[in-house]
């Protein structure tokens, strides 16, 4: 984070030093504000990001602005009319970083801060009206508000980190800089947010990976070295024991490699969790592919599938095909493991439901819990995938912990090919990345149903079945 490190010099007289004519420009357009932000003790890092974000034209402009800032004699009010670059307001508007200009009249009126300009990224992030409003409606984090106040009334630049809420929990660095006083006497400040989720998350994921790997690999490793010791020692010439031990060792080695695979894919998914996937996937087709792929496992256990799927193209969801396949595979694989011999695994897909309908219980008597709920979006439709097994089910108290890494329901065996304990954690992170939801329902002794729902693909609403009809089916 380049901006957070050196605190810019304190410039209480920054506003007065700038030519008065410039403040008139504040009212002309937000473009002038950028220029002002850069003059007030220009931060090169900000200039570079701003420039890089708005393409080559923007780069030239920002460079020019910086150069101007260095030369106090040059007025900043009318930059770059010479060779018709894109206007500043367009550049600001298209910046990927959320940016706001905040105005305040009285120092003691803490809630009276208003935003007078918010670019498209800021409006989308905070769901704002373009014509301005009270700052607290967009941002209520006390630390950021304090930083804004210091920029407004103490004339200093400040940077603070804060975590935005929501299912994906993004981490932001908020940078504030004073912009002086406008024609009506209101003080102005710039607030720019930079998404630093990537950097922070990769740090944490690496730490988590190491902790998990070192802890979970120790057990199979200890058993491996134990067997090796025995084989080199008193079991040296015992053919029967050697074969048995080698079998166990192979199983342990396979488990270790599965564990590493799962940990790696969990780390990868976690790193990208805040980036929504692009692409469209037909949920029903993906289910068919997975069921084909898992046929050997189901045959080995004499478990049959009972798929209830909509026609091709009806359950088109937004997503990454490989990841959605992994979700279906983990859920169906689990269901096969827990279903007794000659049992049936039911796999259903229902498109076109609202979030409430998608998460609605099907059996009122069952213990039920939503393990992941997407952020509320008006009018969003979801396609639901439900996988039901006829296994032993789980007691209510286990449900909240199911997606925990390495959590196991006591006294249950998933069969000889034991899992890594990461399957559901992977499902949860993938579904969260897809802005979807996950819920579980279980009656002890009768089985469990896992439901995941993904946002439907936008653009072809006519393809989906009428929601009312599907809903009644889903809820029946």
């Amino acid at each position, binding site marked *: 984070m380049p901006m957070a490190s050196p605190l810019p010099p304190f410039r209480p007289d920054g506003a007065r030093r700038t030519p008065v004519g410039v403040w008139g420009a504040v009212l002309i357009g937000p473009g002038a504000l950028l220029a002002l932000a850069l003059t007030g003790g220009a931060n090169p890092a900000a200039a570079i990001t701003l420039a890089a974000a708005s393409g080559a034209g923007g780069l030239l402009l920002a460079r020019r602005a910086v150069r101007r800032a260095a030369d106090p004699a040059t007025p900043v009010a009318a930059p770059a009319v010479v060779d018709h670059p894109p206007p500043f307001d367009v550049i600001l508007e298209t910046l990927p970083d959320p940016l706001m200009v905040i105005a305040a*009249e*009285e*120092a003691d009126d*803490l*809630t*009276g801060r208003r935003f007078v300009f918010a670019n498209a990224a800021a409006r989308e992030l905070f*769901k704002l009206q373009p014509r301005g409003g*009270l700052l*607290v*409606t967009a*941002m*209520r*984090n*006390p*630390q950021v*508000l304090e930083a804004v106040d210091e920029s407004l009334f103490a004339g200093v630049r400040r940077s603070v980190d804060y*975590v935005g*809420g*929501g*299912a994906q*929990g993004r981490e932001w660095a908020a940078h504030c800089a004073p912009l002086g006083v406008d024609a009506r*006497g209101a003080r102005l400040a710039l607030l720019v947010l930079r998404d630093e989720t990537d950097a922070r998350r990769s740090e944490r994921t690496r730490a988590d990976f190491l902790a998990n790997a070192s802890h979970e690999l120790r057990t199979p490793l200890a058993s491996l070295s134990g067997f090796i010791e025995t084989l080199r020692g008193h079991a040296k010439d015992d053919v029967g024991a050697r074969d048995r031990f080698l079998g166990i060792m192979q199983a342990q080695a396979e488990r270790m490699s599965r564990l590493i695979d799962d940990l790696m894919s969990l780390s990868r998914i976690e790193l990208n969790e805040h980036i929504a996937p692009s692409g469209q996937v037909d949920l029903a087709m993906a289910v068919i592919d997975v069921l084909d792929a898992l046929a050997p496992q189901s045959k080995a256990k004499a478990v049959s599938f009972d798929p209830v799927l909509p026609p091709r193209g009806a359950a088109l969801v937004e997503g990454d095909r490989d990841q959605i396949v992994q979700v279906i595979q983990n859920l169906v694989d689990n269901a096969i493991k827990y279903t007794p011999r000659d049992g049936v695994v039911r796999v259903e897909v229902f498109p076109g439901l609202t979030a*409430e309908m998608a998460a609605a219980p099907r059996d009122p008597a069952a*213990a039920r*819990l*939503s393990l992941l*709920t997407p952020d*509320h979006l*008006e009018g969003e439709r979801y396609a639901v995938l439900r996988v039901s097994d006829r296994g032993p089910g789980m007691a*209510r*108290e*286990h*449900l*909240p*912990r199911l997606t*925990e890494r390495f959590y196991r329901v006591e006294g249950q065996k998933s069969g000889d090919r034991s899992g890594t304990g990461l399957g559901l954690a992977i499902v949860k992170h993938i579904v969260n990345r897809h802005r979807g939801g996950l819920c579980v329902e279980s009656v002890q002794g009768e089985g469990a149903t896992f439901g995941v729902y993904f946002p439907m693909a936008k653009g072809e609403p006519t393809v989906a079945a009428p929601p009312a009809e599907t809903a009644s089916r889903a809820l029946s």
Partner: protein
Amino acid sequence: MTEHTVKSYGEELNHLTAEVTRMGGLAEAQVADAIDCIARRDAPLAQQVVARDERLDTLQAEIERKAFKLIALRQPMAVDLRHAVAALKISMSLERCGDMAKNIGKRALILTEADPMTALTRSIERMGKLVQGRLKDVLDAYTASDLQRAIGVWGRDEEVDEHYNAIFRELLTYMMGDPRTINPCAHLLFVAKNLERIGDHATNIAEIIHFELTGEEIISQRPKLELSK
């Protein structure tokens, strides 16, 4: 500085909402920090959380004063009256949330002296994130006057209860297994209870928003979990 302009009635009402939102932000930050200091065993942060609670109390008193003044002088009717009363009630709920956060901070200070129990604090953190999300959602619903979102928060109350019950069980197992953990586990139990109460306050705020926007109580039965199951 500049002279005080006489604010219009509508502006005064908006201002009250904004003040409650700002207080909400403060309460949110307190809850988030309280959870953080449990998860990271961060004693200085815990002291800050305890010290900052006063600001919430001051803000609440201020909002109360403003709301009373507005009701007395402007004599609002119908939706405006509900607006003022909602601000009053929500600020009280938020102040209580702050108290819980402060209490969690105090317990975090004690817990930093005991041995770390990562598995347990992880569960607490998970529950904390859930509660934090509910508080955020309900405050977003309040700022945006979004009825659907408020109802959404209100309907998802059971999740927190489920987590609380799971943690309760987990803690009991620990305490039975090793009596030396009873002291820290008892503190964690109260932390979980405090979080559950904050979740209840979020539900309560959702109810207040529903009344503010529609003038009617939420009638249907709230999904409630029986402990005996």
